[in-house]
Structures are given as structure tokens and as C-alpha cells.
């Protein structure tokens, strides 16, 4: 934990801004992946459309920031909405819009199960992708470039290090709150729905309502990470919503260990580091990543976090349960 706080100064000494930037990216994707874990790991619903929420959050920030920097309005009709670079406004907006999209699509998607659900979440995300590609006013397939990062009162946002700390705080906050939610009564119902939906229904739980709330929470989280991502890279494009991105986030969840919240963050680190590492050797690193992924799925199961826990908890076995 302390390690994470000390990272930037250490990193800058080692590799310069690049490492800090990479670490920031890891945190941001970790946040999105942890949010997805709520749906996939705890809820047992495989969603292939999570990148859509990231994209919405990113675009929300991008659109408003661009409008503010260019002194134009976001909307002139039917009402005038000015842009803003105030992070206290843009980030919640990112969350809110993503949550709204999550609500609308969730109501439709969650009426379905299993394979249908996977394909529909995928379809909706891709729909959004095509939508933004065709929307010329928001840059179409070229996207939007952010002039400045969003401001947080009293903080210098332009420094990568500051952004890193902001992301870190947000991620830790989410892990804490998320952990509480997962252990709460609400969390129990979600888990019950995953373990045995029929039994849960027979006990009296309207599972779909709980799942919808869970879905919206995850969407809002992804939206937040999208907003942070827009600030981080300074650039927003429809590619953020491409389904391969959704797949990547899903990979992070699996790689790190689903149903743990922390696992996906580790998975994000693993995947992004692996990509960077492999990219150093060949531009065709995906040809290696593919089989690696396959191997992990076929032969691994616990995820990295589960593996680590297994090792560290070996000493604790042998305790007898009290009754």
C-alpha cells in the first residue's frame, strides 16, 4: 500500500514521466475493471459492453472540456449548456451519464440470460461506437483533443504525478466502498443470484432489480474511469468504446481474479505491463498475447490474486472451525 504512494517519486527517478503515466493508466483501467467485477465476478453476468460506459464518461469530459477551452457551448438548442473544465462538475457528470446509459440498456439487457446477455451488451456497446463515429460534431472517428486537463480546486492537474495521486485516491475509495457494498445485504443478494438464481427467486428476491442497481453502479464507475482517462491521455475517440476494449477489461478481471475487487486491479496491471513488455520485442505482440490468454483460461483459474492469496494463506490452514 505504501508502495503505491511512493511510486511516483521512485518511478520518475527510474524511468521518468513515462512510468508514472503508465501507472496512472493502470489505476484508471483498474477502476473500470473493478467496477466490472461487480457485474461479472459477484453478479455472475458476463458483460461485453463495459467499454461503452468508459467511453461515455470520457466523451462527457471531452465534450465539456473542449467547449470550455474553445469558449463554445456544448448545446445551443433546445437549451444552452456551456462547457466546463471543473473536475468537480465533469467527473460526476461522466458518472451520471454513464449510469443513465447503464440504466436504459440494463433494463433491456437484464431481461436476458447467458449468451443472449453477452451478445446484447456487446451490441449496445458497438452501437455506441458507431454512433460516435458518425457524429461529426464530436470529431467522428478522429475524436476530440482536450486542451487542458480538468481542474480540481487547489490542485495542479497538469502534472502527471498529481493526476496519479488523484486516481489513486479515487481507486482506493472505490475499493473501500465497493468492499462494503459487496459485504452488505445487497451484495449477498447479488451473490445469491449468481450462485443459484432459481433458489434466490424462490426465497422472494426480485433478482433483476438488484442486478439493475449493480449494473448501474458498475456503469457509473466505468464512467468515472473514462473521465479520468480523458484527462490522462488528453484525447477521446470512439476507439475507447470498441468491443476489443470491453474484451480487454474483461481479461483484466479474469487475469487478476474475479469476485475480489482487488484482483481486477492487479489484472489491469498485469495486462498493461505485459502489453508494454511484449511491445518492446515485437509490434506483433498480440500474436503472443492471444495464446497466452488462451492458456490462462484453459489452465489457470484463480487469477493472479487468487494465486497470491493461496500462497500467503498456506500457513493459515490447519485452523479448526469453531461451532
Amino acid at each position, binding site marked *: 500500500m505504501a508502495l503505491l504512494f511512493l511510486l511516483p517519486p521512485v518511478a520518475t527517478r527510474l524511468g521518468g514521466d513515462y512510468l508514472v503515466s503508465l501507472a496512472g493508466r493502470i489505476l484508471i483501467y483498474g477502476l473500470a475493471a473493478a467496477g466490472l467485477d461487480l457485474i461479472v465476478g459477484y453478479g455472475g453476468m458476463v458483460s461485453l459492453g463495459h467499454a461503452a460506459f468508459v467511453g461515455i464518461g470520457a466523451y462527457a469530459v471531452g465534450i465539456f472540456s473542449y467547449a470550455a477551452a474553445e469558449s463554445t457551448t456544448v448545446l445551443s438548442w433546445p437549451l444552452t449548456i456551456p462547457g466546463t473544465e471543473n473536475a468537480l462538475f465533469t467527473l460526476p457528470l461522466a458518472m451520471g451519464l454513464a449510469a443513465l446509459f447503464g440504466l436504459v440498456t440494463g433494463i*433491456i439487457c437484464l*431481461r436476458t440470460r447467458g449468451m*443472449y446477455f453477452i451478445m446484447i451488451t456487446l*451490441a449496445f456497446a458497438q*452501437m455506441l461506437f458507431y454512433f460516435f*463515429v458518425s457524429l461529426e460534431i464530436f470529431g467522428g472517428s478522429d475524436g476530440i483533443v482536450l486542451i487542458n486537463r480538468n481542474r480540481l480546486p487547489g490542485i495542479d492537474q497538469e502534472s502527471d504525478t498529481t493526476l496519479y495521486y488523484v486516481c489513486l485516491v479515487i481507486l482506493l475509495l472505490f475499493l473501500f466502498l465497493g468492499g462494503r457494498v459487496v459485504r452488505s445485504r445487497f451484495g449477498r443478494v447479488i451473490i445469491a443470484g449468481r450462485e443459484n438464481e432459481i433458489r434466490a427467486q424462490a426465497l422472494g428476491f426480485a433478482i433483476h432489480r438488484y442486478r439493475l442497481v449493480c449494473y448501474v453502479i458498475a456503469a457509473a464507475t466505468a464512467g468515472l474511469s473514462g473521465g479520468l482517462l480523458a484527462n490522462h491521455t488528453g484525447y477521446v475517440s470512439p476507439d475507447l468504446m470498441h468491443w476489443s476494449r470491453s474484451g480487454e477489461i474483461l481479461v483484466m478481471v479474469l487475469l487478476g481474479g474475479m469476485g475480489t475487487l482487488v484482483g481486477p486491479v492487479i489484472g489491469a496491471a498485469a495486462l498493461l505491463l505485459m502489453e508494454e513488455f511484449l511491445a518492446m520485442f515485437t509490434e*506483433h505482440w498480440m500474436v503472443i498475447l492471444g495464446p497466452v490468454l488462451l492458456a490462462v483460461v484453459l489452465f489457470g483459474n484463480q487469477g493472479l490474486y487468487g494465486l497470491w492469496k493461496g500462497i500467503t494463506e498456506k500457513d493459515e490452514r490447519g485452523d479448526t472451525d469453531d461451532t
Partner: protein
Amino acid sequence: MLLLEQILNGLQLGVMLFLMAAGLTLVFGIMQVINLAHGSFYMIGAYTAATVTMHGGSFLLGLAVALPVTAVLGMLVELIILRRLYERNHLDQVLATFGLIFFFNELTRIIWGRQPLFMDVPSFVGGTVEILPGVDYPLYRLAIIGVGILVALFLYLLFSRTRLGMQIRAGAVNRRMIGALGVNIKLLYTLVFGLGTLLAGLAGVMAGPILAVEAGMGESILILTFVVIVIGGIGSVRGALAGALLVGLVDTLGRAFLPDLFRLVISTAAADRFGAAVASMAVYIFMAVILALKPRGLFPANG
């Protein structure tokens, strides 16, 4: 007339989607495996045919080579990888086949480079045909529609007249039962998968002359294929046909006419901006509406 032309375009897209969806819906329904890599076989079919024609072969030769290649490759993938995924949960299946996509796409880029390949429309179906007085339509696209009809007919005969077809249909409804009845499940699965990839490869070959042959081409049609399957119902070839034609028409007609419709209702500036964007969403909205009424599709196999 523009409308007729667009309808035919829609049917042609529908045929391509049907070829992709028919096999895939069976894989979903019988083997209960969600296979994201189906688009890769479409791509492989296209690349194989393009390579053959580039080296002096005729289109037909390209077709004759590409089809067995995709079928065999498909069966190999089934034997080596997919088998292990049948009993796994959907997440594992999604991620494993995702890995396959990465692998195939990148492999394609390694072998053929990043520049797209181009295929010419074969001369024997080149040119246009006058379908109505004064209305010309590319013969090639009509040929594609024709192929679609033939394939639909072939599948109909396969399913209703042959033992294999019956086994497949039974498997789509209740796969445990057919195992109990003594059908060689493993072989059946391999054949079904091979059939699916063959059809996908066929679609890819036919798409070659119309679209650019490049890595990642499979994925864009795959999303629409999923929409087709969701609308048609998992496990149902009939549903795949209905869904494919509907999706093909809605998407094509939507893109062609919605922006204009928008212009009628809203001022030009806004219409231009949003018309095209909304048109691209038309199919998905259509899907949402169908799902609201029938969450398991129009003709679910075990409905």
C-alpha cells in the same frame, strides 16, 4: 429506383449475415459455446481466396480452395481448443475465443501485412443487369443473393431429409438426449462446427470483391451476426434466416433513408449531424424492440 436498389442491397447483406449466423447459431444452441472467433473464419476465407486470385487463379479456384481450408481449419480449432470449452462457463469461453481473435488477426497481419488486399469481381458475374426498365443492378450482388437462396435450400434439405440433419436439429433442442440416444456427440460437434466455419468462409470469399480484405474484417460483421442470432433465437437456423434478412434490410434501408427522413422533420443542420448517427443505431434499436417483446428471439430452438 433507389428503393428497389436498397432493398436488394439489404437482401444481399442479409444473405451474408445468414451465412455467418446459420452455423454460429447452431454452435451456440448445440454446443452451448459462445464463440467470438467465428469472424476469424470469415476473414480466413477472404484472405485465402484473395491470395489464390492474386496469384493468377480464378475466382472459382479461390472459392474451391478457401472453402475446404476454412472448414478444415475450423474443425482443427474445434478439436484442439473448443472441445475444452464446452463444459466451461461463458466467461472462460468469451476470453478464450477472444484470445483466438487476437491470434488470428495478428497472424494475418504478420503474413499478409497491414495493407488490405483487393479482389476483383469475377468476370462471369461482372457488370450490371437491368432488373427494371432503366434500373441497373450489379450482377455480382444478385449472384450473392442467389447463393444465399441455394444455401438456405441446401440447409433445409439437410435438416429435413438427412439423418445428420435430424441429429443436428435434435441436438439444438436437447443435446443431452441425443447423447443418450447413441449419437456420436464428438463427431457431431466437430461437423457442426466445420459446417459453420465453411459457411463463414463462403461469406468471406463472396465479400472479398465488395469489401476490403483486411485483418479485423471479421469482427465488424460478427457484431451484426450476433444481433441476427439474438433476434432470430439461439439454435434456430430458421430464426437466423429471418433475423438476417430483417437485420440486412433494416440496416441498409435505415442508413439510406433515415437521414432524409430526419431532414424532413428537423432543420437541416441538426438533421445532418444526427441523421447518419441515428441511422447507424437503427439495427440495435430494432433489436431492443424485438427483445422487449420476445426476450428469447423470434424462433428460439427450445422455446
